[in-house]
């Protein structure tokens, strides 16, 4: 059953690679309209967690529900349908490098005509590109774009199917500080424009401060601490304080 306000619910999620316990009884809720930031050290299992959420990786035990549906054991058809409601921004943008910007954006549209609802493909592409401020780049190839522009196009591709949830995997990684700031503000704009909920993974504290309504610290495979940015900033636990140095 879908609780309309709770888009993602994770309970006691465990995932190990052999001896390496990456997630160990991890819990998380993502509510409608919220920007939840998950911080954790590099290699702490943040990307693994996101991949479990979209069925790219299987989890060992626990429950992971997205829009009321348990990911494990889902059929391919249902999973693909659910995935159109989840946007995923990859750490390295992951643009299709043999396709132009236009083809990158039309790729998901072509395969999910039911999501277009009568609108023309060109209009939707134009709209998405304008919303990330890159309408002029439509006929370029990814290799002709700077890192920041690639990230914007990747964001445009993520929002083009109008997902209800967007998962961001380190949206500012690999970008210079100024471009990173631009991307952060762009994400905020997109969130307001499209009314989506967002789960943002980062280890960039500036990013977390600006974007988050709520934060979770991932440590030793579990949700070690939770709260607003201010609450965590004033937390006395040395392990939590280490993140704010």
């Amino acid at each position, binding site marked *: 059953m879908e609780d309309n306000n709770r888009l993602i619910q994770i309970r006691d999620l465990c995932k190990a690679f052999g001896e390496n316990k990456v997630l160990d009884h991890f819990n998380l809720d993502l509510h409608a309209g919220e920007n939840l930031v998950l911080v954790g050290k590099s290699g702490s299992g943040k990307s693994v967690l996101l991949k479990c959420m979209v069925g790219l990786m299987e989890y060992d035990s626990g429950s992971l529900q997205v829009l009321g549906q348990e990911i494990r054991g889902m059929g391919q058809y249902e999973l693909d349908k659910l*995935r*159109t409601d989840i946007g995923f921004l990859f750490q390295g943008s992951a643009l299709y*490098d043999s396709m132009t910007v236009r083809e990158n954006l039309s790729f998901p549209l072509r395969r999910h005509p039911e999501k277009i609802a009568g609108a023309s493909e060109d209009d939707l592409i134009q709209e998405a590109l304008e919303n990330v401020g890159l309408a002029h780049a439509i006929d370029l190839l990814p290799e002709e774009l700077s890192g920041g522009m690639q990230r914007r196009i990747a964001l445009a591709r993520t929002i083009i*199917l109008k997902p209800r949830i967007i998962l961001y995997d380190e949206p500012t990684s690999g970008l210079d500080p100024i471009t990173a700031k631009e991307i952060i503000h762009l994400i905020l704009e997109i969130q307001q424009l499209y009314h989506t909920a967002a789960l943002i993974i980062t280890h960039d504290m500036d990013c977390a401060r600006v974007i988050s309504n709520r934060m979770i610290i991932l440590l030793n495979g579990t949700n070690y601490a939770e709260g607003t940015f201010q609450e965590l900033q004033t937390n006395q636990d040395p392990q939590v304080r280490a993140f704010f140095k």
Partner: protein
Amino acid sequence: MTKNSGLWYQMREIVVETGEIALFARRFFREVFNPPYEFRELLKQSYIIGNKSIFLVATTGFIMGLVLTLQTRPTMSQFGAEAWMPAMVGISIVREIGPVITALICAGKIGSSIGAELGSMKVTEQIAAMEVSGTNPFKYLVITRVVAATLMVPLLVIIADGVALTGSYLVEHVKGNVSMQLYFSQVFRNITFGDLVPATVKTFFFGFAIGIVGCYKGYTSKKGTAGVGRAANSAVVVSSLFLFIIDFIAVLIADIFFEL
């Protein structure tokens, strides 16, 4: 010497790998007939494969025709059997040399580029990105490329055969003053159904092997740029090996059915 270089280890690797490729091929056959079909991408890939290799295939074919004729001719004329030249060269080109040389070139050209392309898509998470956008990347990337290779390699073989025969004719014409009409009528009179059918059928298997091995290597490529290089490289090595095995099996089967 590391333990990875032992003969025993290498043989075991080959067996394990063949098993994995067989599983990959099973997935191919499970999904190839189910919609949605990616026709546009299939056409595009067929065009790329043809376009990429046709020049090389034609050039090698031409040279093989020349060389084969130049080298065989003196021996044949010692026995006064120059009249048999078109038939003999024609049969060796159509049955063996055309298919095998073309397939080897395609393994180098197409196999490696499929391996590198899918490998880099894998490590830069483009394949994962397709998957989360609700598209089956196996259908879009693997099935289209394997089908394209399966269809295009036989076509390239036919072209190579034609060019090689032309090269051979040129030598005959210069050395033995054989007319074009005589040459080609000699060739076609002596090539039988039993030469043509197995030779054509096996080229489809060659194409399939090149496509499936290239895709398997790319699709399962390991992280990092070294992984991509390895995917491209081993796509060529493994598919070339498979080509010879398929060729051997094809000859055995043809031997049974058409009684050479």
